[in-house]
């Protein structure tokens, strides 16, 4: 039996199992912590940095999605400083790609757009980088528009951990990094892709979408994920 730990989030007493994360306990208690790369049912990578929280006595900020709870810790999920950082991170994401909501299939149903609204990011201070990235429409059912990718790697994880195909991965590094299928080959030519479409459904933006969808028409179905994960008998794959 796992031990129960009690601690505080925003001065409120909360408790959880020792193997649970700050993010899990916050969600159980309806305390909002913004996330983008995190997705219930997939492993956590801690890469978007939106879920950073303050812990009393810690010199560094804690990544809520991967930090296990500790007895007596005092977590603060909201402060002027955190809001500032989160706003800038979302701004950096907007500046990195070509996120033009008005022409996007996911307009109104995009997690990046939602996050900008929640965090009050309504204009950019940093300049747009305007990369010229490719759009892969070679797949019979889906399209990959890299201009809208935020490298959250949900597609990589769902394909590896749930579908078991590992069609997706990340190539290159730094600002040049992009998601790829197989040996950076057209998606439609992929030998490993099972056309299950899970990657499309977990994608937080309009980067992966179904063919035939027009502006603001792409809504994503996520119900399958908790179901499939529980079928595998554990909370997180791998």
């Amino acid at each position, binding site marked *: 039996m796992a031990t129960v730990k009690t601690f505080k989030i925003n001065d409120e007493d909360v408790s959880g199992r020792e193997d649970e994360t700050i993010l899990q306990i916050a969600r159980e208690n309806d305390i909002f912590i913004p996330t983008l790369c995190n997705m219930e049912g997939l492993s956590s990578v801690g890469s978007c940095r939106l879920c950073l929280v303050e812990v009393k006595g810690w010199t560094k900020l804690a990544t809520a999605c991967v930090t296990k709870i500790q007895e007596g810790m005092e977590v603060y999920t909201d402060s002027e400083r955190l809001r500032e950082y989160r706003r800038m991170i979302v701004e950096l994401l907007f500046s990195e790609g070509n996120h033009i909501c008005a022409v996007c299939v996911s307009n109104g149903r995009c997690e990046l757009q939602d996050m900008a609204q929640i965090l009050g990011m309504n204009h950019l201070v940093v300049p747009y980088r305007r990369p010229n990235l490719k759009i892969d429409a070679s797949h019979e059912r889906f399209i990959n528009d890299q201009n809208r990718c935020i490298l959250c790697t949900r597609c990589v994880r769902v394909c*590896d951990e749930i579908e078991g*195909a*590992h*069609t*997706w*991965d*990340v*190539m*290159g*590094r730094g600002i040049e990094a992009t998601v*790829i*299928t*197989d*040996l*950076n080959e057209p998606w439609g030519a992929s*030998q*490993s892709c099972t056309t299950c479409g899970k990657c499309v459904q977990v994608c937080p933006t309009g980067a992966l979408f179904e063919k035939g969808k027009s502006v603001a028409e792409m809504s994503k179905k996520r119900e399958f994920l908790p179901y499939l994960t529980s079928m595998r008998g554990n909370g997180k794959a791998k």
Partner: protein
Amino acid sequence: MRSATLAPPSEDKRWRLVDATMRRHGHSPNALIETLHTVQESFGYLEDDALRYVAKSLHVPMSRVYGVATFYYFFSLKPAGEHRCVVCLGTACYIKGGKAILDTISEMAGIKPGQTTPDGRLSLLTVRCVGSCGLAPAVVFDDEVKGRVTPPEAIDRVKDWF
């Protein structure tokens, strides 16, 4: 193990070296980087066929092999030129004029760092410190490290290569 009997992409004898590395590591997926080192050393670069062969032999997904091959600067997906000129841009070399050497060669050869001349004779590359800071600025001509290089000397050295 099925992977052990997988046929190499060609008759080329260099595949034996690649096979030997994979065998030494028991065809474990962990041996990916070690194997790619052997491929790069044997063939000079990583061809798609080689990546496919390594992926299948080590049971590593194709996209992961490609992800690894493009993550590390030591690996190259394109054949290098007949001659290689590697300019060190470590801090010591940078403040002692490594950049000027690079710019001069780049201009003379008409290629940018990381590129190979169209005739495949010369590749111009940069490196973040070869550890010869005592001899800054350093340039590696083919496999020979030269210290205290000046732009005219560098040109003299590579002028027959393009």
